[in-house]
């Protein structure tokens, strides 16, 4: 039939043409080069010892914790946001508004409110870290379990309720914050903004495995995520249980978000920014290809921002705020573009 008149190979591969494959390879290589470059820069720049000497490695080791934290946060935020946007069929929301951050802020604030400055120390430590993660995942599962199961299960209602509950928590936190003394508030304020140096190396033995397991499960389910993206009806028609798949993905997303938030604090628009960029960079629907690009992009954005801020502007503390700001601007740009949701 038509095969004879069309002299090319007919294939349904994700990147059907050589050009698309080349483009994807260039994108990934560029991101890898940037990631390696920034990692090296963060470790070696301003290192007073000559490269390769014992002293060099000692200093580099100290800085390496930060880089590892960035990698964990990058994987968490990128994979979680892309998966979340797929199951909610919506490319402008991020999982971070689902109450994770409000819960984190509420925990931190009430610690300081009830225990004073010592409260900040009280919520530090591995057991507390694990507890916070458990709290966030528990809260998310409660919400999903309640709102997605049953006959009237509706994803958007669940999203809105998550946001509104988060808003309620936030207004309680705000109230407690205004009763703090200015010095207590200063101590608290440092914890309320996402910052890589918030993380304690002691958390990593828990954070890394959690992050890797959840992210791996999501990446392995890429093919099923591709089907979920077709929508509920088409997904069911193709024999995939849409609700079960959604619950599974949302659970893993909540683990990733909880790890990231408990580790470094709120990063509201990082995930959004990175996912939006990754869709452009990867230029495909296929999650097997989107996920690596997203995680790499996220790492490049984080490490690049820290590198530039530290070594060019000497302003280490504002990095996350700058990322948030840029993410917010991209958000405005995206919603004002014509399209459908």
């Amino acid at each position, binding site marked *: 039939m038509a095969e004879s008149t069309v002299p090319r190979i007919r294939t349904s591969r994700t990147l059907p*043409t050589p050009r698309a494959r080349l483009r994807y390879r260039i994108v990934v290589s560029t991101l890898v080069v940037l990631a390696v470059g920034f990692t090296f820069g963060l470790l070696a720049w301003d290192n007073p010892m000559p490269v390769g000497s014992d002293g060099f490695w000692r200093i580099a080791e100290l800085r390496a914790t930060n880089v590892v934290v960035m990698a964990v946060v990058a994987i968490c935020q990128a994979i979680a946001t892309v998966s979340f946007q797929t199951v909610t069929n919506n490319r402008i929301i991020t999982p971070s508004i689902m109450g994770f951050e409000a819960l984190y802020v509420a925990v931190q604030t009430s610690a300081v409110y009830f225990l004073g400055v010592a409260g900040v120390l009280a919520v530090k430590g591995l057991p507390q870290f694990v507890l916070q993660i458990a709290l966030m995942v528990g809260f998310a599962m409660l919400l999903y379990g309640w709102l997605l199961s049953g006959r009237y299960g509706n994803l958007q209602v669940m999203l809105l309720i998550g946001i509104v509950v988060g808003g309620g928590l936030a207004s309680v936190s705000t109230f407690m914050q205004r009763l703090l003394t200015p010095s207590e508030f200063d101590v608290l304020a440092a914890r309320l903004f996402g910052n890589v140096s918030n993380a304690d190396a002691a958390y990593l033995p828990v954070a890394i495995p959690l992050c890797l397991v959840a992210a791996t499960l999501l990446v392995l389910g890429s*093919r099923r995520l591709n089907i979920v993206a*077709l929508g509920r*009806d088409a997904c069911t*028609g193709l024999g995939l*249980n849409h609700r079960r798949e959604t619950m599974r993905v949302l659970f893993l997303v909540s683990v990733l978000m909880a790890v990231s938030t408990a580790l470094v604090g709120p990063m509201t628009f990082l995930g959004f920014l990175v996912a939006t960029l990754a869709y452009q960079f990867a*230029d*495909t*629907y296929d999650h097997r290809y989107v996920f690596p690009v997203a995680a790499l992009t996220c790492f490049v954005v984080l490490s690049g921002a820290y590198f530039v801020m530290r070594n060019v502007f000497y302003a280490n503390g504002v990095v996350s705020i700058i990322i948030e700001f840029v993410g917010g601007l991209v958000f405005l740009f995206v919603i004002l573009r014509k399209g459908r949701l």
Partner: protein
Amino acid sequence: MTALVGPNGAGKSTLLTMVGRLLGLDAGTIEVAGYDVTRTPSKDLAKIVSVLRQENHFITRLTVRQLVAFGRFPHSKGRLTVADEEVISRAIDFLDLTELEDRYLDQLSGGQRQRAYVAMVLCQETEYVLLDEPLNNLDMRHSVQMMKHLRRAAAELDRTIVIVLHDINFAGHYADHICAVKDGAVVEFGTPAEIMTDDVLTRVFDTPVTVVDGPNGPLAVYY
């Protein structure tokens, strides 16, 4: 090919989506080819019956061929074999989408996109194919084309197609059987010749219908 017809809100689409297990049942059971749709695992059912509703989900950067390839998911779980690729090619050619197969979905017209989705469910290679108003938003030419494609699929590919139609004349001309639904119950079932009569249609649609002899068979006139 069986057409489901009936007035608005009669339950045609509900019936179809229940058979296609997109909607849970309130009571009773539905069997397709001897399988109970609520008991049979969804992934097994996906090899027996395929169902298509009006989709308004947009996936960006998805080509026609990649969409059609999703139809192989129940068989391949996403890992396409050479045989799968052949089935995909056949489905695409069958619906005259060969020239468009590398286009992205958002570059297509509504009619072309509709055809791509139909190609996807045909690609699923199920004995039964359920389609919910596939002629919606299609003009005369595209509607006729779509019905001819479906007719051929029923004849050449040996599929059983159940289709919800709004236009009784399309049903009368292309379907083998017509099933009239009203107020949530099947009120008439028969060949077009049996259904396309003044009193049956008038009763089903609650509006005066006269059936006249057209050049290609009976035509219902209702205005």
